[in-house]
């Protein structure tokens, strides 16, 4: 179903709903705190001084704007559409995650919070949080699934180097969703002094909207840059989706532009048909987890099913509630890409462009490689290269049968 709205950018409503999705499904202990975060964020976003400090740090500390790069050799390889990469992998810490952690930690300081906690999957959000905490001298505790700690060892070391404490989570499936449970439990127990920096456009209201707003710098820059490069807006946007923050950051500023095709790419793991995947839109159904209603991988009894993806950053059984809504109203298309397809794209990009992408945007690239050949040379694709692949060399080597 597709409905026509004046704007796709007006959500959420005052209780944090995007249509059926979103909301605030949390234990009562957290409700007063969420209201505080919401009130403080509303105030901060209307405060020019807050925005100015955020912008200044994005420029001088993170290194924004990130370039919009015409990937000529991949374009040539595909022989169809013109392919641009929004190079958020060039940000300080190597991914888009720091746009958000910077914003949230600035907010935490404004609220007088003295301790920061975060969850992490691939470790990129944990590193980005630990980095900003080091910058401001704040203690930082990062919850991380024990399996992810194993497959993302370089990031674990980086977080520790940055002064963060990394707490292994050994419940459930030992991955991102369990890390989120761990962080929520910490928060419930330490509500007075602690701020929870959520890494994606999920969780209870106001997080999905707040994280989106901080990430919108990606799409806002991309608009200006493509106008400069091509004199017009792109035809297609592509980004990978775990929780969906890099995608939302790129997509949101374009949602109201008629005629721009927007595609989110979920992780199909071993293939949707095998049941071992992380494609909650393709194979899940609406449910409630981690404070919001969204599409979830769940069994017949409403128990959450473990997600599977070669990419730790996409290995989550849910998706941000705004994506769930954009899916249902038909404004954004959601596709999926398998581990194998992502690994192929990972290698191709390394060889053709001299860019080793993270396994997460390798999924987005794999989809671009599928569609670009059938499109004409006037068709412009902008893909979010949201992270670099240094962190993935060990797991990619293992998957490719290379011992290091």
């Amino acid at each position, binding site marked *: 179903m597709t409905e026509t709205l004046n704007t796709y950018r007006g959500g959420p409503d005052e*209780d944090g709903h995007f249509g059926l999705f979103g*909301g*605030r*499904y*949390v*234990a*009562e*202990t*957290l*409700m*007063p*705190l969420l209201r505080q975060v919401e009130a403080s964020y509303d105030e901060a976003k209307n405060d020019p001084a807050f925005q100015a400090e955020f912008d200044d740090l994005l420029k001088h500390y993170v290194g924004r704007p990130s370039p919009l790069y015409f990937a000529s050799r991949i374009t040539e390889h595909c022989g169809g559409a013109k392919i641009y990469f929004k190079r958020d992998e060039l940000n300080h810490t190597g991914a888009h995650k720091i746009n958000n952690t910077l914003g949230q930690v600035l907010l935490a300081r404004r609220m007088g919070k003295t301790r920061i906690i975060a969850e992490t999957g691939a470790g990129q959000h944990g590193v980005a949080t630990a980095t900003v905490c080091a910058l401001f001298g704040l203690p930082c505790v990062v919850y991380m699934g024990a399996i992810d700690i194993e497959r993302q060892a370089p990031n674990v070391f980086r977080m520790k180097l940055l002064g963060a404490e990394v707490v292994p989570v050994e*419940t*459930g499936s030992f991955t991102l*969703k*369990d890390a989120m*449970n761990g962080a*929520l*439990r910490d928060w*419930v*127990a*330490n*509500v*007075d002094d602690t701020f929870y920096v959520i890494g994606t456009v999920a969780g209870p209201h106001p997080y999905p909207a707040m994280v989106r707003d901080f990430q919108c710098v990606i799409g806002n820059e991309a608009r200006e840059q493509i106008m400069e490069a091509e004199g017009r807006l792109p035809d297609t946007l592509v980004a990978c989706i775990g929780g969906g923050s890099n995608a939302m950051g790129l997509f949101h500023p374009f949602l109201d532009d008629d005629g721009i095709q927007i595609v989110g790419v979920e992780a199909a793991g071993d293939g949707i048909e095998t049941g071992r995947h992380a494609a909650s839109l393709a194979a899940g159904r*609406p*449910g*409630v*987890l*981690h*404070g919001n209603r969204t599409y*979830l991988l*769940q069994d*017949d*009894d*409403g*128990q*959450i099913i473990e997600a599977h993806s070669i990419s730790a950053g996409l290995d989550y059984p849910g998706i941000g509630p705004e994506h769930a809504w954009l899916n249902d109203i038909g404004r954004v298309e959601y596709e999926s890409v398998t581990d194998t397809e992502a690994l192929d794209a990972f290698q191709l990009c390394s060889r053709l462009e001299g860019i080793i992408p993270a396994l997460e945007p390798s999924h987005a690239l794999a989809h671009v490689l599928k569609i670009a050949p059938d499109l004409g040379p006037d068709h412009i694709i902008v893909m979010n290269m949201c992270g670099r692949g240094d962190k993935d060399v060990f797991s990619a080597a293992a998957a490719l049968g290379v011992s290091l």
Partner: protein
Amino acid sequence: MSRLQARFEALKSEGRGGLVTFVTAGDPTFDVSSELLAGLPGAGADIIELGMPFTDPMADGPSIELASGRALAGGQEMSKTLAMVTTFRQVDADTPIVLMGYYNPIYNYGLEEFARDAAGAGVDGLIIVDLPPEEEDEFSVFSKAAGIDIVRLIAPTSTDDRIGTLVENASGFLYYVSVRGITGTRSATADEIAQNVARIRKQTDLPVAVGFGIRTPEQAAEVATVSDAAVVGSAIVEHVAAGLDGNGKPSAGLVSDTLAFVSDLSAAVRNARRDVAP
């Protein structure tokens, strides 16, 4: 009069606070859990909280999370949890049962269907940890029609304004979460609890039960003197865990040992004199 109302009236006339016991449905197996459930009233439980297992129990500590895991590994499902209540009701018409858990398994079951089937099984109330009043309307329309109370949680972080919102449309009783944190970890002092219960009573005539962090008969007795009931969960569930052998199989003494602990809790609560009038 509902079973919950009748039970709190009876406690009042006995001049004591009640004991609310929590066990997870299906932990460690459907059969052992059913046997345990059947034995709770005889051991002195005034009200039974029956946990609906969930893979991601975010507000619970390790003891109850492990209990959920054991139940799910043993094949527990929502329909089996309701079947346990149906069986229990065939022999006990008076002890109130409150199901406690998370929203997703209920949402997944179907809101109208769940309210209907839970009421049909003999469930009296529901505690849905992650369903605040702001999100509750879509479900409470059905639970009300089915005559099931939604028991609201009140936290130490709840302001007086917030307590006002929480007691509005509440029924059955209120559940004061006495600590900032997850189940079974820290404990609050009796003074703190008494002050907060008084703060809640200013805004409602509903009974107030207190839980989270109550681990011993002495603590239960103390809490029962300053509130309408003490809830003990993790400590009971840990007795279930202690009754498993090295292979995770229930030992012969699991049910009797767990019920013996419930009897100790009950004796302490029954002997405690109320020093604060409700």
